[in-house]
């Protein structure tokens, strides 16, 4: 699964970090999303897809 993020859309809710901490982190100064891996292993697909689904800022896109 290919993951892309849009930091301009992120509102720092941190839901992605709770769901997939291996893939997402937050910038220390303002909590904006940081992508840790663009191509996470398949076992994280469900968590990453859920993170994209619940993201309130529509800041996460997944492909594949």
């Amino acid at each position, binding site marked *: 699964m290919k993951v892309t993020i849009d930091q301009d859309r992120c509102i720092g809710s941190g839901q992605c970090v709770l769901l997939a901490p291996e893939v997402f982190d937050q910038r220390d100064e*303002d909590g904006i999303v940081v992508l840790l891996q663009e191509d996470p292993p398949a076992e994280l697909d469900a968590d990453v897809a859920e993170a994209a689904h619940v993201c309130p800022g529509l800041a996460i896109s997944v492909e594949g």
Partner: protein
Amino acid sequence: MPDTRVPAYPMKRDCPFDPPPELRRIQAESPITRVRLWDGSSPWLITDYPDQRAVLSDPRFSADVRRPGYPHVTAASQARRRRSRSFISMDEPEHGTYRTMLTGTFMIKKVEALRPRIQRIVDRRIDAMLDGGPPADLVAAFALPVPSLVICELLGVPYAEHAFFQRCSRVLVSSRSTPEEAVAAADELKDYLTRLLGLKAADPADDLLSRLVTEQADTMSRSQIADMAMLLLVAGHETTANMIGLGTLTLLQHPDQLAELRGSDDPKLVAGAVEELLRYLSIVHSGRRRVAIEDVEIGGRLIRAGEGVIVATDAGNRDATAFPDPDVLDIHRRARHHVAFGYGVHQCLGQPLARVELQVVYGTLYRRVPTLRQAVPLEEIRFKHDMLVYGVHELPVSW
């Protein structure tokens, strides 16, 4: 003259744990429909989950309370929010400018770092309750003090003043308050916080209000910071407290699930139970409100610029397309996609903190007080039909 064929909103509950039957009927029959408000206006009510997310994530729906057509909750709320507007009543880019000043404080790792401190607060309040009873009112002894102590510590507001700010807060979330009462309570609270900010500016401590008053001195007026502080203080009280009180009553009504929660030390089970209770109870039961700033088509309906929209997230969280068997409480359900915190850019800023508080509470209270039970039958419990955030006024318990 108001059209009486248009249903009045909000509607009356029948079961204290479920959304009003008429709301569910509308949801089943016509998920986007007009309703009639206290002021005679007739905004659109959005009840199904996909359309709710579409509205709440669409910038063509404005949260700006000053715009004509914005569907105000009550006359009191209208008067107060027009007078002092915080970032929840702003649109982008203004909203983001202010919200970003706070997101660092509420990010996951910062809130996780507070967990031991929250655990201590919870433990001490349980000790005090056990020392003073049985019986006890769980709301007064525990459900309100815990989030109050947490938000006070985070903001740097002295908890010793809690009787004062809890009184103001109650007036602000009561749907019975007159505009005069609401404005007076808001002014009183704002004066207090403005004075406190003055003290923080002179002698900053390690808390959020000190940080705002020193770091944002060039970008925000003292009055704007006080409005922001007021929002955080009130929101920090009225939401988590109700999820503790009403959530506990709900679990007492579902003894099998309560027993499972009590017997498990799996943090994932507790976290899942928190999400499910947030979904099931949806305590922010007066709807998320917006006004269209352009013509927008939602769910096949044309909503015109200037028309108000109410997103009934309590109904959305019971939408069977998103949550199978939606009226069943199931702590094992995957409920993370609920809209109890709202959705879109205005989704609750404090949600990481609320989650940790509720996880600590649900993971601790029932284990420490395994015989916890209602001291009065359900019929004697007063529910907050008269408050903008739902819950129980008191919860007499024994053990």
